[in-house]
């Protein structure tokens, strides 16, 4: 029971989606659009799930004074702050429980939620990703070493593209005559991107696509059921 009914659900839903792709006649369209609408609502709840487990995890760490609990407290406070700002006064043009909070907007210049977003969330998220610039530099430094044929291929294309995607490439080989334009580095980089790169990406897409088709099919047919988790 605990497993067979969900499997039937997945099967029925999957088959309806498949059929409706090819059948223009009612009621398939209607069923699928209803299904899609439901999907949106259920995933709304599913996202809630992550937030709840985050709160639980943090409170557990704080309550038991696990190492670094102070930081988790800070996390929890920022969560509560942002959430209550959002619920009380809404964001941007959307009003919240207490209306649009014009008084506060007059003082802050924007809603408190947007204030936190612009001055805390945004810089944090952008900076976290920008750390990768440094990691990529150090990875290039230590990994792009002349070794075997295959790794050299990788390194040479990387170098061509790195040069070709900037103004330096334009300057470096801009003097080449019309007949040798192919070897102009930005052109060469575009050529690599357009042909060999596309070919390899296409091969990955096709084979991984087949893998996904296969596993989706197994899920619909109920052969693959590990997503239901252990008992």
């Amino acid at each position, binding site marked *: 029971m605990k497993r067979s009914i969900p499997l039937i659900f997945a099967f029925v839903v999957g088959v309806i989606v498949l059929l409706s*792709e*090819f*059948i*223009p*006649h*009612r009621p398939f*369209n209607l069923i699928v659009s209803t299904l899609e609408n439901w999907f949106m609502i259920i995933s709304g709840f599913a996202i809630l799930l*992550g*937030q709840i*487990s*985050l709160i639980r*995890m943090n409170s557990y760490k704080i309550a038991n004074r696990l190492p670094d609990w102070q930081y988790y407290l800070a996390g929890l406070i920022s969560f509560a702050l942002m959430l209550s700002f959002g619920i009380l006064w809404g964001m941007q043009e959307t009003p919240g429980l207490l209306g649009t909070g014009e008084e506060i907007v007059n003082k802050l210049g924007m809603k408190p939620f947007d204030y936190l977003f612009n001055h805390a969330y945004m810089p944090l998220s952008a900076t*976290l*990703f920008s*750390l*990768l610039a440094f*990691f*990529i530099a*150090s*990875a*290039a430094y*230590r*990994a*792009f070493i002349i070794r075997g044929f295959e790794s050299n291929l*990788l390194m040479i294309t990387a170098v061509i593209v790195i040069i070709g995607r900037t103004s330096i490439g334009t300057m470096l080989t801009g003097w080449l005559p019309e007949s040798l334009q192919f070897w102009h580095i930005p052109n060469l980089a575009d050529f690599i991107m357009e042909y060999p790169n596309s070919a390899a*990406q296409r091969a*990955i*897409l*096709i*084979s*991984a696509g*087949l*893998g*996904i*088709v*296969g*596993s989706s*099919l*197994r899920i619909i*047919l109920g*052969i*693959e059921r*590990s*997503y239901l*988790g*252990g008992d």
Partner: protein
Amino acid sequence: MRSTLVFILLLFISCLTANNFTAIDTPWDDGKSINLNWKLSPMTKTVTLQRQIDGDIFETIHKSTEFQGSFRDNGLEPQQEYIYRLQADFLDDNIVLQAEAKTKEQWFYLHKLAFLILLLVVCFAIVYYIQKAKRGKEYYIRRIAGLDSMEEAIGRATEKGRPILFVPGISDLDDIQTIASLTILSHLAERSAEYDTDLFVPCRFSMVLSAAREVVKEAYIKAGRPDAYKADNIFYLTDDQFGFVAGIDGIMLREKPAANFFMGSFYAESLILAETGFSTGAIQTAGTAQAHQLPFFVVSCDYTLIGEELFAASAYLSKDPQQMGSLKGHDFGKLLVILLIVFGVIFEIIGISFLKDFLSGAAS
């Protein structure tokens, strides 16, 4: 005889010059559009198409300056009569023509035929091979380079008395890569139980956590070492992507595992993990079908399972008939794809584009 011919000719000419306006239900669709075609005298200046709303009220839906053309009126209701009016201004005159049609829903989108055929062929192949595998047919899977490292990595960890780290990606159980990753974990856990080496598995989602514990526990039992199984070595970190990565970084710096395995779905964090792992001197094996992240793993890990190799590895290690059969089915699909491309290219070169048109018919 001759008079008949003259008659046909006259009819033909009159057809050419007569003003003609038709409305026909679009074939093979969901009954929400009607095709309007008109052919007027070449003297036409402007053409206005209108649809009846009620009685004498008409709504303009399209304007054109061409004397011959067609227009598809979309967004209609199925199984309804629609009345259309065409107003044409000539140089010195104007006319109004009327046409009507009923929208009909059909039972098949004809332009998707190629799509359907390919879909059925591939799906049947997969199901066929799965069935065959279940009945005991054994399929060969070629050696996958990245897997050889596994023994080496475990051996080295045992030698140094340091643990192994396994990260099952950052997606939930609904991602097929996570499932493939857990199959690989099962194999790894069995070996590490045999060698009596600690195995750490940090998880990002609660469902992945429970599944991973299950898998590892079973593997330890299978290896005959249920006593060595430590549930706490498989733990939940946090749902947040960067929080999760920072947590793993911490483990790598503190515990200094001798071997790191990153298998599953990875995003921007791939490079952070691999670079931090390198700085601790671990042997690193990665595997993902996430094409964007592959270069970073290839560059900074010792071994990488590329794209579908991850799925193949999971079938290879588990010898599970449904996975083996499915993989054989995918291979059939690849062969089909290669053949289609070869034939398609040959046809294109000799100037026959039937195959390509048929396949891409779904796009129009």
